[in-house]
C-alpha cells in the first residue's frame, strides 16, 4: 500500500488559484483505505471547493488512479470530465502521474505521498519497504532495516540507540531491536551473522 496523506485544504486552494471547472478523481485502492481518496473524502472535497467559490464539474472514483485505461474510458464513466478544465487527483503520486499521462489538462495532487507501507487492525504502518529492488526482508524476520532504519543500516544497528530506542526519535523503537526480538522468537538469530557486502557492478 502506498501511504499518502491529505495536503492542508489551504494549500490545495492555493494550487487551484485561478482554476475552475474542477473534476475530482479519487482512488478506490490505497487512498480510499487510508481515507484520503475514497467517496466520503471526494464528496467532502467537492463541498469544500464549492464553498470556496469553485465550480466542480464532476467526480469519479476509478478502481485505481494508477491503472486507468484511457481518457475516453474515464469519460465513458462520467461524461462531465469532458467539460472539466482541471483535474484534482486524490491519490498518491503514482495516481497523479498516471492520470497526467492520459490528458493534457492540468492535473493537481490533493495528497502528499509518504512511503510504501501497510495497514493492520486499522493502524497505518508507514515505511515498511524502501523499494530497493533487491528484497532481502526474509533475513530480517520480515522487518526491513532499509525501509525502517533512518540510516538504512543492514549489517546491524548504529551505536546511537538508547534503551532500544532510535537515535533520531526517542519515541520510536530501534528497528534492529525489533528485528532481533523477532528472529529470537523464530529461533533464527543465525540469520544475523550474514555480512551484507557492498555490491557494485559496471557495464
Amino acid at each position, binding site marked *: 500500500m502506498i501511504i499518502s496523506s491529505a495536503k492542508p485544504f489551504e494549500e490545495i486552494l492555493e494550487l487551484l488559484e485561478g482554476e475552475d471547472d474542477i473534476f475530482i478523481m479519487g482512488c478506490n485502492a490505497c487512498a480510499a483505505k487510508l481515507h484520503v481518496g475514497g467517496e466520503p473524502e471526494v464528496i467532502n472535497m467537492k463541498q469544500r471547493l464549492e464553498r470556496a467559490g469553485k465550480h466542480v464539474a464532476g467526480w469519479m472514483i476509478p478502481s485505481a488512479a494508477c491503472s486507468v485505461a484511457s481518457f475516453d474510458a474515464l469519460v465513458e464513466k462520467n461524461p462531465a470530465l469532458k467539460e472539466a478544465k482541471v483535474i484534482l487527483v486524490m491519490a498518491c503520486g503514482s495516481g497523479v502521474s498516471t492520470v497526467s499521462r492520459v490528458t493534457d489538462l492540468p492535473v493537481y495532487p490533493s495528497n502528499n505521498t509518504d512511503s510504501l507501507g501497510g495497514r493492520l487492525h486499522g493502524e497505518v504502518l508507514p515505511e515498511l519497504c524502501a523499494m530497493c529492488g533487491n528484497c532481502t526482508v526474509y533475513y530480517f524476520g520480515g522487518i526491513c532495516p532499509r525501509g525502517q532504519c*533512518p*540510516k*538504512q*543500516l*543492514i*549489517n*546491524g*544497528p*548504529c*551505536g*546511537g*540507540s*538508547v534503551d532500544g530506542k532510535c*537515535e*533520531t526519535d526517542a519515541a520510536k523503537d530501534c528497528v*534492529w*531491536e525489533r528485528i*532481533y526480538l523477532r528472529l529470537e522468537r523464530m529461533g533464527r538469530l543465525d540469520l*544475523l*551473522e550474514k*555480512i*551484507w*557486502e*557492498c555490491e*557494485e*557492478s*559496471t557495464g
Partner: protein
Amino acid sequence: MPRAFKDKLLSDDFLVTAEITPPKGTDLSGALEDAEILRGLADALNVTDNQRAVMRMSPLAVSRALLDRGHDVIMQLTCRDRNRLALQSDVLAAYSLGVRNICVMSGDHTTKGDHPRAKPVFDIDSVQLLGALRKMKEGFDLSGNNIGGLPGMTVGAVSNADPSKPLQMLKLRKKIRMGAEFVQTQAVYDTGRFEVFMEQISDLDVPVIAGVIPLRSVKMARFMNGNIPGINVPQEMIECMENADDPGREGLSICAQTIRDLRGLCRGVHVMPIGKHSRTPELLEMAGIRKG
C-alpha cells in the same frame, strides 16, 4: 623518525590516542594548539568528521595540517555525508596527503546536528565501508577498477563497549571480520563491565583502545548515563563527584584510575575531553603514563 601508529599497534606499548576537533571556520590555530598540548603524549590524534553532525572543516585538511607539524593522525570517516564515490575519493585524497590511519563509523544522524534538514546519505554502512577499504588496499575500487593499492594504510572501527548488547557485539564482530585492524570504543567508566566486554571478544585478535572522557561535574555524569548511548557511569563514581570540593580535579582523578585499570585490560586509551586538551597532560601524569 618516530614509529608509525601501525607499528605501535603491533608492539606491546600501551597506546594513547586523543580526539582533535576541526574548527568551525577556517582558522586552524585552535586545533593546532590543542594538538601541540599532546605532543609527546599521544601516539596518534583522531581527527573527527563533522562529529555529532555539526558542520566543521573537513578532516582531510586538518589531518594534513597535523601531519605537517609532525603528529601522527587517525582520520575519521563517516558514512553520513558521502556516497560510495565520495568515500573512496576522499580515501584516495587522504592517502595522497599522507594519512595512513583511517577510522570508519556510520556517523550521527543529520537530524541531531546543526543542519537537521541535510540529506543523510548512508549509501553504504560502516561494515561495507570496511569492505571497500579492504578492497582498495588490495588495489581495487568497489567496481573492481585498478587503483594501485594503499600501501601502509591501517583501518580501524569504533564500537560501544557494552557486553549486554548482543547486536552491538555482533556488529563489532562483523567489523573485525571485514578487516578492522584496531577498535576504538565509546567512553568507559565501568571497568568491570569493560572486562566482560573484553572477555567476550577474547577470541578476536584485534587491538582495542578504550575511550575515556574525564567527568567535569555531577550534572555531566548524570547526563551521560541517561543520554549517551553505551555509557554507564557507576553510582559510586557519581557519589565521589558529589562529595568532591573540586569536581574537575576529582573527575580527572577518577579518569586516571580508570586508565590505570584499563592498562591490564586493553591496548590503550582514547582521550576525548569535553572541550580542549588543556588538562589531558595532567590526566596522563596522574595515570602514570609517560611517553618518549
